[in-house]
């Protein structure tokens, strides 16, 4: 099976959504134990059409429209896994994982531990998230940090079509549960070349998506693209910014993170979640601990405000913006002399 490190292989052009859809379809073809379940995933193909065509191809037993019960979707997925199936559950929007929170953190994430390895929860939970689409309340919240205090579950956030495919296949095959978080704003707009065939990307390995020497911009999911925009702009100003895509936040690629930041001696971290308690805090704390002497200036966090996610009309003020990123970069560069 080709993986990220296998060098050149044939590719095709796809959006993130297309990459997810075809990865699902291919894996269902490969492994008849894989079932897809969630609200509206069947005939409709999901509210974002990520599962479009799957039900007509694999039948209603393997692509199941469930009742509106997030807790049961996750809890039954655990039971399905114990029974030998490989469920890929869709929670319509990440915000509605709250309804299933007790089944995620305390059941899915702990079943292997509780049963001393007798059972494990090979379950993937797919959920779109992130702001900028003027969607109703609860549909845009970035809740990834809330799953980082539930050891036993991986939290992964691909930002590119190739990672979307490679990490989804890794997730489905991971014997342990995975929160696979999809960047809804760029589902269709970010396109790229995606390796053909059976392609996987490991968790816990960050990716330098742009090289740079003056400062490192750390991000994951859709915010990576904001950082790339910022890097473009900074390049015009003569500042060379490295953009690091963490790709998975649990497990966190501590080494890759430290390596990138030590190289530039300055960094900022950008995320769409509110500042306080966001995963940016973990990134900063990790850098503080592991690269204390190697930092010329404090690592700034650019995040959403510590307020409820506002209605669409106000979200552009709330979310980290290009301007706020640039300001943080300039402040950091200035602080370091």
């Amino acid at each position, binding site marked *: 099976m080709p993986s990220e490190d296998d060098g050149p292989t044939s590719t095709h052009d796809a959006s993130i959504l297309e990459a997810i859809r075809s990865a699902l379809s291919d894996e269902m073809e490969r492994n008849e134990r894989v079932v897809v379940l969630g*609200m*509206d995933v*069947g*005939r*409709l*193909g999901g*509210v974002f059409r990520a599962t479009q065509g799957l039900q007509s191809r694999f039948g209603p037993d393997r692509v199941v*429209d*469930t*009742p*509106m*019960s*997030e*807790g049961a979707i996750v809890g039954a997925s655990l039971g399905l896994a114990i029974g030998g199936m490989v469920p890929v559950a869709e929670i319509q929007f990440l*915000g*509605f994982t709250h*309804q299933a929170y007790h089944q995620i953190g305390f059941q899915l994430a702990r079943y292997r531990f509780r049963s001393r390895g007798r059972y494990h929860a090979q379950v993937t939970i797919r959920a779109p998230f992130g702001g900028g689409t*003027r*969607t*109703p*309340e*609860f*549909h845009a919240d970035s809740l990834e940090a809330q799953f980082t205090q539930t050891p036993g579950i991986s939290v992964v956030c691909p930002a590119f079509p190739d990672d979307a495919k490679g990490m989804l296949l890794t997730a489905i095959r991971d014997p342990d549960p995975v929160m696979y978080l999809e960047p809804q704003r760029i589902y269709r707009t970010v396109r790229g070349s995606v390796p053909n065939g059976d392609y996987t990307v490991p968790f816990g390995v960050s990716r330098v998506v742009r090289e740079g020497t003056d400062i490192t911009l750390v991000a994951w999911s859709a915010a990576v693209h904001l950082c790339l925009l910022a890097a473009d702009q900074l390049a015009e100003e003569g500042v060379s910014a490295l953009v690091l895509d963490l790709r998975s936040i649990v497990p966190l690629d501590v080494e890759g993170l430290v390596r990138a930041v030590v190289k530039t001696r300055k960094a900022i971290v950008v995320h769409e979640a509110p*500042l*306080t308690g966001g995963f940016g805090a973990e990134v900063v704390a990790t850098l503080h601990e592991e690269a204390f002497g190697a930092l010329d200036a404090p690592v700034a966090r650019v995040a959403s*405000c*510590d*307020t*409820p996610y*506002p*209605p*669409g*009309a*106000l979200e552009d*003020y*709330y979310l980290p913006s290009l301007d*706020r990123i640039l300001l943080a970069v300039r402040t950091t560069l200035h602080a370091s002399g």
Partner: protein
Amino acid sequence: MPAADTGLADLDRLPKTETNVISLLDDRGSLADGFAELLTPDQIGQAMRLMLLSRAIDDRVTKLQRLGRAGTYSPVHGQEATVVGSALALDPARDWMVPASREQPAMIRHGLPLDRLLAGYMGKINFSRIPDNVRLLPRNQSIASQLPHAVGLAWALKLRHVAGVVLVYFGDGASSEGDFHEAMNLAGVQSVPLIFVLINNQFAISTPVAKQAAVTNLAVRAAGYGFPGFTVDGNDLFAVYAATQWAVMRALAGGGPTLIEARTYRVGFHNTSDNPKDYRDEVEVTAAVARDPIERLRKYATGVGAWSTDIEIRTMKGIASELESAYLRAVAVPRPGPGDIFEHTAASLSTRVRRQRRQVKGEEDNG
């Protein structure tokens, strides 16, 4: 079903279809004997107007959404008799309404000014605030989450010995959430004055009710919580009104909660992001349109002289101008600005959040 001392005709005597659905006004607009006095001609006129207004709002806000001037909108189309009939049975000066997100004419009848309703979809969040004297909670986009709130609110009325009931709306999809069960159960245990109106419009987005539950009659669930539940034809204004009125009287008399399942059909799209052609057959929709709740009431009302083409033309004109001026008032309200992110988050803001406000508002950061 426990008999409540409501002074109303026994619920069991309301006519029912062979599938046990309470039905007073049939598809052809003829009313069961003995119910002509249930609604006054005035009330019928008011109901017609609210239902027509509702459809006009659907059209208008959908257009605004298409033009980028409004956010996501969930139309009422097809469900007007359910929401208007139930709302009419409430006293807005006494009772509380807890909406889901597809009950526009009910909210208006309960006191929400039309301009504020429109403003909500247009992102004018401050103007859309529910006025202080209106006993209404905001729409809730987290399906079924409003149900325990309604229980608590009704419980507060009971604890404080305040006369009044609470009516909460939710859908067939919502009835599968854990919140539904926990709320029904607690309502039963505390015997609170609450009417659960389950709007069974056959769909939760694309999911038909047959995939939502293995029962056809969702109202039977009430029996598991110790209070009455029954199904009404949700396209029948009279049936919805009679059932709700019974439940209101029962609750006021201390009888506790009631579950009313109103069986109707979501004729329109789920919301402005949805295209139902992707998942349901046109023939089904055509059949539902033939059971249109407005047309049915129109026929009856015309027959009894409470409505006419003339009245309808005048009403539609009135609605058009009312909508237009409400829209203009909402347009005139300034858009919210960055500072509004921080308003109403808490009674007092922490230093850190105040600093974020200064940053977002682009003001000087004084530490």
